[in-house]
């Protein structure tokens, strides 16, 4: 059952969150709930991104003593999506803030 491994579970979670978020955006009459839907949607996206970055059995891309600086490529997960997530989070924040402002 390969689908029970970490990356699959997290990416499914991500997808589910996205759908739930959209559901919230589309159906909720309460604006606050809509905004919450938005954040869920964003969160789902971020989870997906992180899942994409995951490389089986690897660790965070911080070259501390535990990782060392040699053969780094075999030890860490992909840092790029993580950097993107960082940006995306802030952007999501901006968007959400604006959405909520517009009420």
């Amino acid at each position, binding site marked *: 059952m390969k689908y029970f491994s970490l990356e699959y579970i997290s990416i499914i979670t991500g997808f589910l969150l996205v759908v739930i978020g959209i559901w919230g955006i589309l159906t909720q009459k309460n604006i606050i709930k809509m905004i919450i839907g938005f954040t869920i949607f964003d969160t789902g996206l971020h989870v997906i991104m992180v899942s994409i970055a995951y490389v089986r059995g690897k660790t965070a891309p911080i070259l501390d003593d535990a990782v060392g600086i040699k053969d780094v490529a075999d030890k860490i997960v992909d840092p790029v999506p993580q950097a993107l997530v960082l*940006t995306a989070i802030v952007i999501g924040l901006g968007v959400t803030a604006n959405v909520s402002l517009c009420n």
Partner: protein
Amino acid sequence: MISPIHIITIALGTAFALGFTGKLSQKISAFIMLAAVGMLTFISAQWVYAFYSGGQETIQIFTAGFKPPYSVNLQMGYQEAVISLMINFVGLLSGIYLFKTLVKQGKNAIAVYIILLMGLNVIVLTQDMFNLFVFLEVQSIATAGLIVLHKKKHAVSSGFKYMVATGIIAGLLLLGIIFAYYFTGSLNIQDFINANMTASKGGAIAVFLILGAILLELKPFPANGWALDVYQSAKPGLSAIISSASGTAVLFVLYKIAAIGSFDSYDLLANLGIITFVGSNLLGIKQKNAQRLLGYSSVGQIGLLVMIIGFGPVLGDKFQFIAFTIVVAHFLAKAGLFWLAGIVKKDNIKKWSALRKKPFLLVLFGTFVFTLIGFPPFPSFFGKWELIMVLAAKSNMIWVAAILLGSFFEGIYLFKWLGYVIKGEVSEKKTIKVPVHKIIPVAIVGILTYVVGFFSSTFVEGGDIINYLPLFFIAALFFVDFLPAFVKNIIAIAGMAYYGYTFLPELYEKDLLRFIFGTIFIGGGILTLIAGFYAKGKRQGFYPAALIMFAGLGGIIQAENMLQFFFAWELMTLGSYILIIRGKRSMPHGYSYMLFSVAGAYLMLIGFAMTNAQAGISLDALSMITSHANLIYLMLAIGFMTKTATVGLHIWLPGAHAEAESDVSPMVSAILLKAGVFGLIILFIAMGAESAGTNPILYILGWLGAITALVGNLAASFQEDAKKLLAYSSIGQLGYILFAFAIMTHLGWLTGITYSINHFLFKAVLFLAIGAVVLRVKTHKMYEMGGLIKRMPLAFIAVLIGIITLSGVPPLSGFAGKWLFYNAVILKGWYFQGAIVFFAGIIAFLYCFRLIYAVFLGQLKDEHRNVKEISIWFIIPIYILIIGIMIFSARPDLILQPIGDAIAGYFPSETLNWNDTTASTTLGYWSGYRVMIIIGIMFTILFAWLALFNRKSKKVKQFNIVYSGERPERPETTHVAHNMYAGYNKALGLLVAPFITQFWNYMSETVKGTAGFVRRVYTGNGQTYALHIIMYLVIIYLIVF
């Protein structure tokens, strides 16, 4: 060279630095901002210049000193430079325009504004997908912020909708990007393109999400309710940026990344684009709110551009030109219109008539509207021309049709709007306030449309020889519009005369047919302009319009290729439209005139395009068509027939001609209609004599001509309005001409040309005379006139000669046409059509008599006792034309013989033979000269005879009539003129029941109804809009995968 990176640094530096200026005044902040935007503009301008002057290579700017894909890189190429210049330029102008608002809102708003521009610049420049995403968000948040600036409630709620929509779109884009990264291991767009993602299903979906998201950013129909709300409720200055700058930028993004998809995705884009274009313009028809209307238009235009991007691979090397001209046209016009919306400050387009008090703004408004629709000399004209040429060359005819349909819908509402502006009632006394800082941007943009149009013509095949000289002259005339009318009239006549002099003599040697029509156009133009001397005051806007029309007419004559022809044709339509709507109640008629003209022109365009695809752009190519020839000919014929007002397409004419000003009516009726005839001639020449017997089109056209003649004349008999009567008569006469040309024999053509010359002569006489009378008595209704012969004998004589010529009674030249016609018909064998036309010809007597009787004979009305003879300025041209009629009547051989020789080249058989002054065919013979002499002598003898008996006749007054022992009480009750042919109407009136009008009304109601129905998708609810977005994606997904 300043590196493009400094676009970012300067903008951001300024934005951040504004925080320091807390204590400084807002104005200074705004000035700093303007300086910064100016700097941005300068940077992009210098790059454009560098690329333009050649030698400059596309450069890459690596941030952080690393090569892509490892770091984000910006690319500055020619295209990027141009787009960025456009953005910054409109940003600068909008900044000036919004200056006061921004100052009032404070430095935060100023910072947001400059960041918006920066964001747009970066999304154009960047080559990194994620970077694109980030700055897309920057611009959408900035936009939302500026929307909220307009602190009205609906602005805030539309900002909310905007944020929800862009939020979802951004999320989908992000999803697409991250999966694209997953499949390619890169974030660089170039890598995406190289990676061929669509090979795998996941990759294809990633591409789908990316492209879909960018497409959704472009507000495709129908998932664009959020955007429309924004257009409607944002500040006009901001809407201008959203529409022109943001739209352009995101379009460029789409263009940039479209290549990541496969060929199918281009197809998909094209489909979605055209759906947007047609759908959005359809919905615009029902719209009343100015800004929302512009929103529809924007969305539509962008849809068209998306389509063009989708067709990028097909269009090949023409792509850049087409896309650029249409983008620029949209960009300039939309910015200008939105700014105008801000100046006018009226939501409802019906109230835009306030603009009329400012002629300058009015002209700008017209410029923008015509730019949007794609009239010459604006850039979009050339863009659309090329687009359609190329599409046709690749035989994508359905696309061509869809594009033109969409354009037509766009024309419907834009012209309606233009109509409201020019003719709507000005209810308020207050004139609109026009601050200088708001005019400047509009004016600059307006002027640019002309400039760009001028330059873009040189890039089109065949466009480099378009004669712009008349246009410059007209432009110059426009600037001296403050002069009194008679000065301008002299200038105009001189200009026309010179213009004629430049090409007519040469034409006489080369091509007699063209020479004849050229003389009609230019000579007739001069004559009718003489009548213009009657006008007092300034007569603003008249002369440029009239000259545009005549320049167009001259251009048609001179045209050597289809582009020139079409260019001139559209120019003529434009000028005549403006002329027509100058009339007091002519707006609805001018509107329908324009719609018919535009539709007809589009059909012509299709025809030209198909021809061009097969045989090249020259006009001669029409005769070298190899496939679909009949379809092409049919479309061209319909196109021309909209101008000749053949039955079915005629409903615009009566009103348009009748309600136009007195000296405009002869221009549009006697002269302008000949343009359609000329077009038909060109078409028929192309079809060739050999098609005469075989081609069903000719047969159909013959019947159409006959029916037109009948219906036109019959309807003319039942008119109460003198000018309308003449207008219907024109329809009938043009029916004859169409019929005669469709015969396609030597005689038929001679008939047609004779009719054309005659129609020009007498219709000009009649319209001038009646127009002048109308000026005096101030009514069109014939039954309100009467007995005017006593007051206006000269006008009466003119009309008398006019109607004798019209009805074809010998000895005047009308008979020449009839005689030729008979011979032609019998030799051709079109007996029944001929009989119908003949019947129509007799019906002409009905209206002729009605015209002259009801106006000049019968009882003089009390209120007209002191009216003066018609103005001398009308009499002069009228009598010049009458001399023409006389000469043509006495010696038709002088003109017809050389023409006969000229067209003998096309039709060698069955020619007309001239023996001295006697014309003869195999059927019969006739000598106009002798008939004239015999009748003259006879007339003199009889006159003497009667004079002998009646020399002592008592001249009596108007009521000295036998009245069964009673006396008439009033002239009104004694003048039989209303519903004159009642019995006839009872018998045959059913033939002229307005079926056709009803048909077109039904059509327009259907279109409007559809628009109204579809419009219900826009509920105004943000969640519904969001749902639309999702649905849109889902449906496309289901279709694609």
